Structure formats: structure tokens, C-alpha cells
């Protein structure tokens, strides 16, 4: 337990001391909203129509940005080899990483989402549904991202492959995420999203650990 706490603490410190990563993410998220709003023009009906989708696309793309930093630094300075020999199981270490990844790359987006809602002329009720759907759905994105990053970590310079691998896998998250904002049966979609997140979060650390421990050096 203390080992897991130590892992969480280390990851958080590394992520936060690293500096601008979080800010880049948030800025990217907001810029995406601004650009789309600009492209569509001042048609608030249309904007509101596309808003749920755009929020999810922006969130998905923003979460891709931090992916390469999940395992690569540890791979390159030899820490990943040592983690494979730690008392703490590798999958637990990865679970901690996924959690911190979510904390530093999804949570800031959710906190910044009011700005996006404003840009995309979202009404109050939709806004709250969006917050709920992001809260419930982004863990799945983080988990899939971890699998993608783990699979590509031993590829030198393979930064772009991970997004390609996980984008098709993330489509259900996107569909249910958008569905839980717009659809008439939004609560059903939200439930599904929750189930998906739960499954992804509970399985991904093991898959990622398997991928990492079957990579040589």
C-alpha cells in the first residue's frame, strides 16, 4: 500500500514539476474549441448541435498529447527495468501511472470545460451532462492510452503509433460519451460509459504490464 502511494506520489511530482504539460493540454483543448467556433461562425444553434461531439474530440485529442510521456522517460533512463523487479507488481505501478495520467490530463480538461461550453454556446443542462460524461468516460480513454503507450514504448521514436492504435479502440467511448450528452436515453449511455470505463481501467494495467514485461530491455 505504501508502495502504491509512493508510486502515485512520484508520478504526480514528476508530472507537476515537469511544468507546462498540463497547461499545454488545457490550451490545446480550449484552442480547439475556439477554432471550431470560429470555423462554424456565429450560428449558435449549429454550435450547440456540434458542441457535445467537439468536446469529446477535443478531450480525446488532448489526451493523446501526454501519452508519450507515460512510459518513455522511464524506459529511457532504465527505471522501467527496475520497476519490473520491484516488490510492487508492475500492473499496480501501471495502474498508478494511469491514475496520475488521468489526474493531470483529464481532470484539467474537465475543469477547463466551462470555457469550452461558453465558446460553443452550450446551455446549462447540457453543460452538466457534459461534465458527467467526461468524468465517467475519460478514465477509459486514459486506460486505452496506457495500453497503446505500453505497446509502443520499446519502439524508438514511435510516438505517433500509439494514437493510431488506440483511436479505433476508443471509438465506443466517444460514441457513448457523445450519446450521453445528446441522446434522449442519455442515462443509459452514461451507464454504458461507466461500464466501459470500469472494464478498461481494470483490465488495461494488466495488458500494459504484459506488453512491457514481454519487451526486452
Amino acid at each position, binding site marked *: 500500500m*505504501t*508502495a502504491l*502511494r*509512493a*508510486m502515485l*506520489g*512520484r508520478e504526480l*511530482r*514528476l508530472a507537476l*514539476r*515537469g511544468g507546462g504539460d498540463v497547461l499545454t493540454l488545457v490550451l490545446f483543448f480550449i484552442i480547439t474549441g475556439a477554432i471550431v467556433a470560429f470555423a462554424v461562425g456565429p450560428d449558435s444553434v449549429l454550435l450547440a448541435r456540434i458542441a457535445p461531439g467537439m468536446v469529446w474530440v477535443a478531450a480525446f485529442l488532448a489526451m493523446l498529447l501526454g501519452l508519450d510521456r507515460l512510459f518513455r522517460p*522511464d524506459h*529511457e*533512463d*532504465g*527505471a522501467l*527495468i*527496475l*520497476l*519490473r*523487479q*520491484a*516488490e*510492487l507488481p508492475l500492473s499496480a*505501478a501501471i495502474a498508478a501511472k494511469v491514475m496520475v495520467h488521468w489526474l493531470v490530463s483529464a481532470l484539467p480538461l474537465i475543469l477547463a470545460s466551462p470555457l469550452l461550453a461558453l465558446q460553443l454556446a452550450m446551455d446549462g443542462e447540457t453543460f452538466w451532462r457534459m461534465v458527467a460524461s467526461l468524468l465517467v468516460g475519460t478514465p477509459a480513454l486514459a486506460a486505452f492510452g496506457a495500453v497503446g503507450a505500453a505497446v509502443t514504448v520499446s519502439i524508438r521514436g514511435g510516438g505517433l503509433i500509439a494514437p493510431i492504435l488506440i483511436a479505433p479502440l476508443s471509438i465506443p467511448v466517444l460514441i457513448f460519451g457523445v450519446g450521453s450528452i445528446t441522446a434522449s436515453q442519455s442515462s443509459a449511455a452514461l451507464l454504458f460509459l461507466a461500464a466501459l470505463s470500469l472494464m478498461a481501467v481494470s483490465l488495461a494495467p494488466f495488458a500494459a504490464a504484459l506488453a512491457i514485461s514481454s519487451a*526486452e*530491455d
Partner: protein
Amino acid sequence: MTDRQVFPPLTLRATGLSCGRGGMTLTADLSFAVAPGQCLLLRGPNGTGKTTLLLTLAGIVTPLAGTFELEGTDSEAGPQLHYCGHRNAVKPRLSVRENLDFWAQVNGPTGLDIQEALAEVGLGELGGLDAGYLSAGQSRRLALARLLVTHRPLWLLDEPTAALDAEGHELVTRLLDRHLDMGGLALAATHDPITLPDPGRMETLALGVRT
């Protein structure tokens, strides 16, 4: 650290072990046994597969043929070895103490106290410093301190003395000697001369001469 023989008596035995990278055999058909309190030095020119052999024993690289085993461990016990490779796994953004503390927690703080371990490797006063500021030798010392904060019977050291000064060479010898005293095992790949006080504890395995 005060009592000798803290480890159960283990033996590392390799029979017919062939290691290699990318399907290419580097060290063929090795057989050796390392008894408790023994240190095996791996020697050989650059590129003969010392690092590869250590990685194989650490379970990172799959052996091409043959087997090896740490006899005497009960299967319940967690990882039994420390690997200390070319790269130091030091995070520049964390302080020296945070770096070490992390590994102590993650591996189980069964060994020395953080501060003691830092003092032991000569970093006692740098605990609060950002690890990114450490010199090459200081980073190496920090990596060595990791071996001290968690007791594990088998040490796999890859050029432990790299970047260390004369005092650092002594430090490595001292640490190794103490580890063997406690009934530990060690394999060390090195180009520098390492001489333990008791030469009977050291054996040398010269890996094939190439290029």
C-alpha cells in the same frame, strides 16, 4: 546489517546457458554456480555480452538455450535480485532523497534507512538537492544507494565503478564485501580491477574474446 548471514542460503546455478540478442548467440553454453557469499566477476572485451548475460539473469532477456535458477528461494518470496545497469534511473526532477525514497518504498524498505544509505555512498549532504544537478559519479552513487535500502540476496552489477573516483572504487568494494558477509550473492561485470579483501570469495568468468 549488524548481523551476518541475513539471507537464506541461496545458490545461483546456470547450466548450459546461452544468451544473445536478436537471435544471435553471444555467450554460448555457460555453466556456473555462485554460492552464498560468493562474487562472480564477468570480464571480457567490449561487446562480448556481459550486459546481455546480466539482463538474462535478471529475467529481462530470454535465454536462447539452457536454464538458470536461484536455488533455495521459496516460490512465495518476491523478487530476489537487484539489477544495477548502465543507466542510473535517476529522475532529474526529484530530489536525491525523493529518488531514493521512491525505490525504497517500491522495493520494500527492508534495508538501511534512506539517510544512512545516502551517507554510506557519500551523498549524505546532498539529500535535498535536485538529482538533475548530480555529477556523473554522484548519480552512480545514488544508484548504488538503491541496493542498500532494500535487502535482496542477489546483486547483478553492470560496471558498478563507472564514473566513480578512487574513493568510489573503495566504496563499491566495501559494499560488495559487506553484502557477501551477509550471505549475499553478486555478479559484477567490470573493466576496472575489483579486489575484495578476501580473494577466495571472488571468481572470474572471462567471456569469449571477440573482434
